[in-house]
């Protein structure tokens, strides 16, 4: 006959359903195993909680559901309006600025030419304004 199962092996059997064929053939070990099953049921008693606590919890859940609904109702029109505004803005995109009629090639070349001819740095030009006579 096989040796009896020890406590660790029985506990392992209880949780992992490990195969211990010895349990089928040994009445003593089977009885100890049933005791452990009963003990586990005792240890796993439901958590003590009052009806008032559960009622308060239900009220809190209900309030959170209502709050989410209110939030949705409040922001849904604003979000829809924003989406429409973005849609319209994308659809009717502002046209590109028309080219200035007076900005002809001749004027451009003249400006570039005068910049190249000048020996004074461009950034110094505003300083002259300080010394110019108003009259």
């Amino acid at each position, binding site marked *: 006959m096989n040796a009896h199962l020890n*406590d*660790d092996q029985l*506990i*392992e059997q209880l*949780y*992992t*359903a490990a195969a211990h064929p010895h349990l089928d053939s040994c009445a003593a070990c089977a009885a100890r195993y049933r005791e*452990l099953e009963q*003990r*586990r*049921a005792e*240890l*796993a*008693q*439901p*958590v003590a*909680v009052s009806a008032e606590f*559960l009622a308060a*919890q*239900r009220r*809190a*859940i*209900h309030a*959170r*559901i209502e709050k*989410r609904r209110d939030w949705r109702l409040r922001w849904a029109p604003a979000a829809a309006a924003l989406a429409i505004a973005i849609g319209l803005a994308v659809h009717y995109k502002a046209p590109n600025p028309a080219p200035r009629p007076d900005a002809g090639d001749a004027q451009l070349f003249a400006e570039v030419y005068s910049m190249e001819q000048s020996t004074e740095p461009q950034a110094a030009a505003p300083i002259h304004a300080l010394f110019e006579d108003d009259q």
Partner: protein
Amino acid sequence: MIGLVAQPLVLDRTEPDLLHDFARWMTSEQRRIYSLCQRFLEDRDEADSATQDVFLKAYQALKRPNALELEDPARWITRIAVNTCLDRLRSRKWQFWRRRPSHEDEQSILALAASRAPEAEQRYFAAQIGERMAAALEKLSPRQRAVFTLRHFEDLSLEEIGEILDLDVGTVKAHMFRAVTKLRADLRDLYSK
């Protein structure tokens, strides 16, 4: 022991009716889900908050127009609860101040210990066992804890645990084996009367 038996969930999709049906179903499941959260989290306030999150998530999911009919609503809500608790356990790793039981829990245990009422001793030992079990569960990883809790407290088979956690039975067995190995001394103590 808490089983996965509750009222079937028959829902009317119009919002006031949905809310009414949902409230009825929630009442039938609430105690079990709160107990499960309490066992995972070992903190009354956090279990309360997690239970609220679970039912809020469930309501949001059921309210969707394309929500599927549920074959097994009890298992579905258990799954939401387990995942909610796992998320909280994972984020708790950083919360070093949670190592002690709450002041309220400590006070209630001390009050029970001081009481002379005949049932007080039994309740005191039950509270002590709960405390010891909680301390033992702290040693486990969130996944091991989930597997162990569902087996020990909910008496689910390894196959059912696998379905809830989306794991194959072999993986569930491996987690359970590691959990039992870590808890061996504590369990031996709890099982010897």
